[in-house]
């Protein structure tokens, strides 16, 4: 239900920069916010704020003026109302693992961190849903469900730290997306504090609710439609069994042919992840799994379902891999072996640290059958810029994550990273794909929006955003390119920002 409390928007609010530390309005805002959450749940000293100047996207930085940790929906509502009253921008932050700068507080203001709202409010197996607070870490929900025969299906690779609220805001995917879908397929309803401070419930635990599907519209809004304070999510039966395999190929081309052939055969693996030569070397160096160092590519293939169905699926997959010149297939026969195979995938990012001081992960998507073309292009780009690019990604979805390795202290290399990324994403669009499969537009890719969508598309999206967020006071300058100006208040670029040439 819509909260009917009157909004308190001060028309003649002080300009933002007057609100800076020490000014009377700033002190007054801090005082009032402190009354809402208590001294222990608010930060406003410059050195404490530094931690929050960026998320997983480190190119642009901007520190918030205040960081606040509410513990209830009512607190969030009060905080948002105060922000309106003082005309201060605000935005939500979960775990801060966003790779597109979703948590960048453009223009400073108040950052509302939801990690203290992490309770499970209800688990209902019979009706197959759970109600959780937004700051709950994704994996903790599945852990809490252990032994019930259920789990929460969306599992981003960051699931050990990212929050359900962040997942909903970005419509996260993950290795199991191919079979089980992305976050939006698992959200039944939610509660949100709208940018004016009112509290609203959208959807609900039943299979359908009357009216428009506003919770569906809300998922993937990247924090620009208000703050999610509760989520009703679908929970999924655990598969009875798995079969996990590692297929080693001489060339990337053979591996990508196998991906397409497996799916064309009517098999939807629960995961189909690819690691290329570069990442195999990094992972092997770091963890000594016993990967062949001269292999062109490795596919992690997992099928799951009823025990009785799996051997036949595995047989078909082996046959397909054979026909695509597979060099060898390692099968995990014990849970320990399965865990080891998955460890190689999940720790791939960690291993990259050994290769290079800095790296930039891209998030392009192409139709699955165009994978060979995009991978060839990535290789050519790597040669063109004389820069190492390694690949580990959700191949079954055509969602590539080229990782560009560089040294952030070298200005010339930074420029090359930006240009190379640009070219790769441009190519994804040319092949009929998209520039983001799961990380979102954020601030990082905002200049691509006008290349994917025309003015009417963007106007319609803006119209919809303005219904939720008419004053753009919540998570400013995200997702949609600004009509007015390209300058973003208060943002310091540690590197030259990506600017689209057209």
């Amino acid at each position, binding site marked *: 239900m819509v909260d009917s409390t009157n909004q308190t928007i001060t028309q003649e609010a002080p300009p933002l920069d007057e609100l800076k530390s020490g000014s009377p309005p700033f002190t007054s805002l801090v005082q009032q916010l402190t009354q809402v959450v208590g001294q222990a749940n608010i930060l406003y000293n410059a050195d404490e704020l530094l931690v929050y100047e960026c998320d997983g996207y480190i190119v642009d930085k901007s520190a918030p003026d205040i960081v606040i940790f509410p513990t209830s929906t009512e607190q969030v509502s009060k905080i948002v109302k105060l922000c309106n009253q003082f005309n201060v921008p605000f935005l939500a932050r979960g775990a801060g693992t966003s790779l597109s700068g979703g948590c960048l507080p453009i223009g400073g203001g108040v950052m509302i961190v939801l990690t203290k709202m992490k309770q499970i409010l209800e688990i209902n197996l019979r009706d197959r849903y759970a109600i959780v607070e937004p700051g709950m870490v994704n994996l903790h929900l599945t852990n809490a469900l252990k032994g019930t025969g259920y789990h929460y299906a969306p599992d981003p690779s960051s699931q050990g730290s990212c929050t359900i609220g962040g997942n909903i805001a970005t419509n996260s995917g993950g290795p199991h997306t191919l079979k089980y879908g992305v976050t939006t397929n698992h959200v039944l309803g939610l509660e949100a504090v709208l940018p004016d401070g009112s509290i609203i419930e959208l959807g609900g635990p039943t299979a359908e609710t009357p009216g428009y599907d506003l919770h569906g519209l809300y998922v993937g809004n990247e924090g620009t439609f208000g703050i999610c304070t509760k989520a009703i999510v679908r929970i999924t039966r655990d598969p009875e069994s798995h079969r996990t395999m590692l297929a080693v190929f001489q060339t990337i081309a053979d591996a990508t042919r196998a991906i397409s052939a497996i799916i064309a055969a009517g098999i939807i693996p629960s995961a189909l992840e690819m690691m290329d030569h570069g990442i195999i070397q990094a992972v092997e160096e770091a963890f000594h799994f016993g990967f062949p160092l001269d292999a062109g590519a490795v596919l992690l293939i997992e099928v799951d379902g009823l025990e009785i*169905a799996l051997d036949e699926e595995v047989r078909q997959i082996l046959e397909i891999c054979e026909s695509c010149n597979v060099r060898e297939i390692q099968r995990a026969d014990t849970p320990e072996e399965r865990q080891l195979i998955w460890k190689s995938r999940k720790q791939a990012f960690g291993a990259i640290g050994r290769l290079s001081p800095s790296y930039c992960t891209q998030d392009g998507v192409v139709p699955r059958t165009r994978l060979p073309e995009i991978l060839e292009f990535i290789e050519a780009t790597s040669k063109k810029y004389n820069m190492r690019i390694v690949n580990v990604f959700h191949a079954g979805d055509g969602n590539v994550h080229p990782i560009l390795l560089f040294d952030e202290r070298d200005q010339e290399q930074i420029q090359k990273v930006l240009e190379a990324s640009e070219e790769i994403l441009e190519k994804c669009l040319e092949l009929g794909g998209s520039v983001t499969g799961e990380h979102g537009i954020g601030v990082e890719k905002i200049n691509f929006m006008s290349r994917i969508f025309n003015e009417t598309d963007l106007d319609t999206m803006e119209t919809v955003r303005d219904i939720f967020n008419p004053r753009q006071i919540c998570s400013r300058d995200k997702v949609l390119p600004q009509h007015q100006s390209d300058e973003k208040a208060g943002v310091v670029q540690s590197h030259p920002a990506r600017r689209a040439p057209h």
Partner: protein
Amino acid sequence: MSPTHSGSQEEFVPASQTELSRFMTDNTAAAQKQIFPVGGRTSLSVCCPASQSGTLICTSQLNRVIDYPVRDMTITVEAGMRLDQLNEIVSAEGQRLPIDVPQSNRATVGGVIATNTCGPRRFSYGTIRDYVIGISAIDGKGNLFKSGGRVVKNVAGYDLSKMLVGSLGTLAVISQVSLNLRPKPETMSMVWFAFDSFQNADRALEAIVTSGTRPTAVEYCNSKAARQIAAESRSELPSEHQVVCVCFEGPANVVNWQADQIREEWKTFSPLSSQIVGAEKATKLYNAFTEYQTSSDDPVTLKAVLLPSQMMKFVEAASQLNIAVQAHAADGIVFGHLPDSASSLEDVQQILQQLQKAISPQTGHLTIYQCESEWAESLPLFCSAPSGWALMQQLKNALDPDQLLNAQRFSELVEA
């Protein structure tokens, strides 16, 4: 229910998205006629009340495949494509859109999206909302907009398709859609169980939660509906009792194993009888379950959406009122055809009141799914205003400021 159309309604049949878009723009600029998008006209008596005059936008010519990269398992089609036509095209490649649609020889992709139509299989496959990856539509201002794209994973921009799914043509006319497809399973089978008490049927349904099987659909019908469905499908469904029918899909050995397994598991719930139905007969029975929601000649069809755990309480109340009840049981979606004896508006309203008692606002809601057109204005389509109603109104006003698109339908959407 047969579509009824009278009054001064002209018809416009665009031959392309561009033509449709131009018509809408011109209409916004000048004549400002009421617009009623129609697809297969399987539900027009409810959707476009005959008393209104305006222009029907008929999508029948917008029925082309725009792009079908078979190995990517996605397809882009125009919104007027009939479901059977779509299924035929993708079926030839061993693929399908796993959405059950009544009257699929007439219903269109646009209509299915506008109504979020679903059937038994939603338990395992979800609804059309889970398959739309890109959408184009023209709003009440004449703006042709799109969102999403043609790849299965894409989070660039807001997901406007969700806004249009289930919007009943009140926000925009859907013109083109990209869909995700799935492989067609090798075979299917069904197992029916007859129960003599609501409690036993409910205990069996609850056991789905921990079953060793993974059904793709779980249908329930009370004895009155069972009789009609048995007659319709010419199957030997027991018609004196309550029936729960569990459906499996997949490779033959897996389907057979599950059918045996569920019979073993459900012995403890004392079914009076049970039977495995093989693929051919199961398909007929399955179709009857899909069609049942729109198949009745009865004056009123109700739809209740409940938490599965609360469903049987409602079913029991409805059965006592002599309502024929069918349910997509594992999802808590119930269809009820009112008895012939409910012959006046007052009768219907009284029944509604009694049923409403079996539903709490937290656990479900009741809607009028279809009714005689002369009652349409007096009966609430939805029996309570949804939460988020203020936002919905703002959406409607922003996309269709002159209230040209199915305006009456929109107010019925929520006015109690």
